[in-house]
């Protein structure tokens, strides 16, 4: 687990508040050209803009909480990188491989990528497990439940 050393000293609420402010700004930017309309005829932009504003406001309150609240402040705990990157990578690979390469490729690779995120990686075990799970899922989802999941379009047209 990697931890960024500076993050440790930031109060949790400051980060939490700034996160909301960021969400608010993104929403305001995305919704900038939407027509807010009037109360009689509310436009598509009224609610998103109002909610984004509220989010920002909440963010400011949360961020400044150490100043007005007597609750004990936790500091922002360490963030790991390995887990998020590998888990995200596994899902991303699955998403982009499932149509062109089929489940027989997307499934086992996703499992192995995900398994690498763990503390210990036992290679033989995980490879056997990946193969077994792929076969099991093919039977379960494709054969038994009949979901239209491409299994191996490059081999079987299936």
């Amino acid at each position: 687990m990697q931890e960024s050393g500076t993050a440790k000293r930031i109060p949790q609420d400051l980060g939490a508040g700034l996160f909301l402010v960021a969400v608010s700004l993104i929403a305001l930017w995305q919704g900038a050209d939407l027509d807010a309309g009037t109360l009689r005829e509310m436009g598509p932009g009224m609610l998103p803009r109002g909610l984004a504003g509220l989010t920002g406001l909440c963010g400011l309150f949360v961020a400044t909480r150490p100043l007005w609240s007597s609750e004990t402040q936790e500091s922002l705990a360490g963030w790991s990188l390995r887990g998020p990157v590998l888990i995200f990578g596994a899902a991303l690979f699955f998403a982009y491989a499932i149509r062109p390469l089929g489940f027989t490729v997307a499934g086992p690779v996703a499992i192995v990528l995900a398994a690498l995120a763990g503390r210990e990686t036992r290679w033989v075990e995980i490879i056997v497990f990946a193969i077994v799970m792929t076969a099991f899922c093919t039977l379960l989802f494709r054969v038994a439940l009949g979901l239209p999941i491409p299994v191996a379009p490059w081999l079987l047209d299936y």
Partner: protein
Amino acid sequence: MRSLFVVAALLGVGTATAQTYPTRPITMIVPFTAGGPTDVIARIVGEHMSKTLGQQIIIENVIGAGGTVGSTRGAQAAPDGYVLTMGQMGTHGAAPAMYPKLKYDPTTDFAPVGMAAGTPILIVARKQFPPATLKDFIAFVKANTAKVNEAHAGAGSVSFTSCTLLNSQLGLKFTQVAYRGTGPALNDLVAGHVDFMCDQIVNLVEQVKSGNIKAYAIATPERSPALPNVPTTKEAGLPEYQVTAWNALFAPKGTPPAIVGKVNAALDKALDDANVRKRLLDLGAVIPAKNERTPAWLGTFVKAEVARWTPILKAAGAKGE
């Protein structure tokens, strides 16, 4: 990754020649949710077609953006007859006006296969709404335009487009209440929270029969056997209001004519089958006449539909993206 997909698709084309087609299951894309009118028609027709073609037809519901997500997928599929699209009035008629950034052109990006079935549009109102006939209705809404609430099933829906056509023919602008789908809209119509709406007969037939709502007219040249007491718009005094939510089968552009012919023949045979006809008629659907079932007829029809809807919807200020 994209190129691998193309290679796989080309391999598919190579093995499937027109004589042997089909050698593997066919996917029929239905760009709407399972259980909706288009889906039901696709399933009834598709089931019989798979018997004729000797291969399973898998219905894949690819929903989104008024059916344009699924239709885009259908337009971009390999032109080998293994991916067909059940298009309808919205995706292949109204979409170019509703969605300026549409990724396909219904008139050029598809090889028309044939008309499947249509569901006529009804004009219905809440039970206690004062006017009794369509003529009264027109007079009433002209006199009380500001008070009347018109319900529809969301921008881009069949209900929305057919309402828009009615409004433009009457030259009136009502207060429109948008719902997400026919179900909630119908609920509020039955409860009397809104005044009137236009929608497909399938969704309304039981409510009309039980007297929960009243029907003013059906927008087809002939009365429907499912609701024989409801007059046509022609009889009731608004002859120019003619709308049927049609559903038709399309293949991607460039599909060999021989394959289109085979699918068309299977569709034609399905529409002649007594059991299929009964099921469709029970829904209140209209089955196309023999001369309306050819690919060429459908091609001309789609062009006419796009030409008819575009100006009306643009004038009504549709600004979907």
